[in-house]
């Protein structure tokens, strides 16, 4: 090994043979800077960096206040902040008996946070028993990744897992089209297997996504970008705010829903029968159904008591063959749930005016579903009886 004092000599000699048989030596300079470390130096660097990587997120958690209310849901604009989702999972698991997990229907895309399914369930229960772990903008494939990689703390809990049939209404929703189309949360879906036909990311991007999942510090870094720099990386943020000090943006305050504009498409009136043409995919070939089943399996493997909520779905928009296909699909889902001993509930069809679109109810719709759930025997025996309290 080269001694410390030798490091700043010009470098190494390499023999340069010539045709006449003689050889001379030429120096190859190390570099044009002094940042040259020895093995011992690298060990020191590794120790310091490991400490930073391990402790920085922990210290940050202490500094950044996060006391969510019982109606809390992760704001839509923070839905790509998987570090925050993980943190919220940890918090919810320590505080609530039952976690409601699903897409924008569970999250309550068209209603305020005090009019969601979890809110109405808590109302009926009379205690803060249910936590809204819905993630707006997700779909079963992404949700599976979210739970697998960032929901590791969800164990030994009651879990209401929502299945939205919307994701099987077309090959496009089901991610089955061969033509590339961009969907939400591509970082969460399997990068290599099972293959998702419409996902055409390059190999380096896929590898990069896998690394992001495996190194929590990168998610922490992403959390800083999302919460402090308006979901931009620091360089892009400084282009938008050229004269501002990036350090000044670090406030240790988590943005809330109030910090963002409400979705503009709130409260659209429900549509009438036959106004939607859907190309239901076969259940046995459906990718989203596959991912839903995978979510169920590993949630159960983590000793959770899983209760499946299928729907709600706005059947008023369906008629003829499309409605028949949907009902047939529901039967197949039901058969699978029964065969796997999974307690479930399929909400009764709500009045048309309580739907915003194909699958999202209005606040009253959520209240009605919560009521139906409380009257459902499977729900009462599996969720309420195993909870710390209930109103029965």
């Amino acid at each position, binding site marked *: 090994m080269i001694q410390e004092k030798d490091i700043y000599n010009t470098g190494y000699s*390499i023999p340069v043979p010539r045709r006449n048989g003689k050889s001379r030596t030429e120096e190859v300079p190390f570099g044009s800077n002094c940042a*040259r470390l020895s093995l011992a130096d690298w060990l020191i660097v590794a120790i*310091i960096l490991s400490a930073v990587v391990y402790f920085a997120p922990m210290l940050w958690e202490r500094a950044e206040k996060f006391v969510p209310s019982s109606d809390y849901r992760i704001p839509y604009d923070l839905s790509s902040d998987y570090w925050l989702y993980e943190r919220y999972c940890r918090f919810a698991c320590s505080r609530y008996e039952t976690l409601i997990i699903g897409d924008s229907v569970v999250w309550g895309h068209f209603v305020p946070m005090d009019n969601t399914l979890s809110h109405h369930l808590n109302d009926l229960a009379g205690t803060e028993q249910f936590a809204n772990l819905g993630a707006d903008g997700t779909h079963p494939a992404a949700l599976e990744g979210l739970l697998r990689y960032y929901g590791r703390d969800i164990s030994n809990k009651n879990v209401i897992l929502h299945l939205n049939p919307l994701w099987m209404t077309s090959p496009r929703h089901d991610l089955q089209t061969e033509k590339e189309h961009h969907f939400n949360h591509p970082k969460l879906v399997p990068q290599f297997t099972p293959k998702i036909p419409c996902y055409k990311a390059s190999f380096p991007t896929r*590898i990069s996504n896998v690394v992001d999942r495996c190194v929590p510090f990168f998610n922490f870094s992403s959390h800083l970008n999302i919460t402090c720099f308006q979901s931009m990386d620091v360089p*892009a943020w400084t282009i938008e705010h050229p004269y501002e000090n990036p350090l000044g943006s670090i406030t240790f305050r988590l943005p809330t829903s109030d910090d963002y504009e409400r979705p503009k498409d709130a409260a659209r009136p429900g549509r009438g029968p036959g106004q939607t043409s859907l190309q239901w995919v076969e259940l046995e070939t459906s990718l989203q159904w596959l991912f839903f089943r995978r979510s169920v399996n590993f949630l159960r493997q983590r000793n959770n008591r899983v209760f499946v909520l299928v729907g709600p779905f706005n059947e008023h928009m369906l008629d003829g063959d499309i409605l028949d296909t949907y009902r047939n699909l529901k039967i197949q889902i039901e058969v699978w749930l029964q065969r796997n001993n999974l307690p479930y509930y399929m909400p009764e069809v709500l009045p048309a005016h309580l739907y915003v679109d194909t699958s999202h109810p209005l606040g009253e719709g959520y209240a009605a579903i919560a009521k139906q759930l409380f009257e459902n025997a499977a729900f009462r025996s599996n969720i309420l009886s195993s909870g710390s309290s209930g109103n029965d």
Partner: protein
Amino acid sequence: MLFHTWAFALFFLIVYPLYLALKRTRFGLPWLLIVSYFFYACFNPLYLILIAYSTILDYTVVAVMEKKGRRKIWLSISIVNNLCLLSFFKYAGFITDNLNALLSSLNVPYVLPAPGIFLPVGLSFYIFQSMSYTIDYYRGNIEGERSLIRYATFVSLFPRLLAGPIERAKSLLPQLHKKPTVSIQDVSDGLSLFIVGLFKKVALADYLALYVDKIYSTPDQFQSPALMLATFLFCWQIYFDFSGYTDMARGIARMMGFRLMLNFNNPYLATSLGDFWSRWHISLSSWFKDYVYIPLGGNRKGKFNTYRNMFLTMVISGLWHGAAWTFIIWGAVHALGRFCTREMEATSLYKEKVPRILKQLFVFIFVTFAWIFFRAESIGDAWIIITRIFTSGFAEPHCPALALVLIFAVWLYQFAYESKIRWFLEQRVVRIGIIILMVLYLALCAPSSEQPFIYLQF
């Protein structure tokens, strides 16, 4: 598969342990060749045909020269073949465009079809490397390589395949001849070089590109301050981009027991334009000096011929960078700069009386001005930028202050490196601190988008 991607990290993590295990066996060299070809095929498998063809031809040419003599003819075959390859893949579009413009100006109603050929990544670099082998053999500077596998590895060695450094056979082939030894210090050095290069590329070059691209894409919409700052930032962007690539290439090679040449040596601290070219893209500058400038006569046949040779070399160097008039003008501007300053720089007044910092500033301003031609999309754009710099009014440039702070920090570091306080930078705690800061900055503040290296297009 670029060095600053996780895909490359995965590739290297698989390749490297096997390489370490095989390097002193007879499978070491074939393994190196296989992984180098695989690395290249990741960009496009068809590229392998081209590199294999060029390799086999030059290897055969030297073998035939060795056996049968008639060296001049065989050397000519090699050079013509290599230049034809370059012309076809790199300049076909440029030549067609210019011929069409000529036909149009002569009112000839005929348009040549566009060739639609894509330039294979790294072609200019390995063609030059291969050419240097045949020329050096012809000149008697090296012996012919007997092993085709070794020669093919010399041409395709993956750390330097995409954008150099353009290694000479006399430097790299001997390293491939002996069984490589990889010491712990080699690994440490390689890592040090790689991290510094990664920081230059990802944290600095890609960051500066955000501002530069914005301004240079529509230069007519910006005023003088923005255009000046964008040019200033591009000056550093291209340095960080290319020297970052080279540092990474040298780092990877060093971890494998190979020493690649220094390609950049703090060029913006140069005190003359000649000094600048001895610090910037050293492997290319020295290639042109040895294989173009000196064969043209160098500085041996009077002043006129010296300047003519210099001019031709610089213009050809510009053309090497890209098939566009902007690159030719860039080369010509540098040549003119050398004409105007060469005599002045030789005077004792300039050497002894002008403060070093003033000389550095002058060279920096000149080089920065010349980069306008290099970066502009067209001559028209370059002209717009230059005229607007001098004629348009003032408007807020909205240039990120952080970018300027980072550039100043790097400049200060380099300045200190070449000054009496270099000892301070050599302190262990300072070196360790610098590496830690760079890694943390990369982890927390690096741009999320991965941009290719600028020099890959050449």
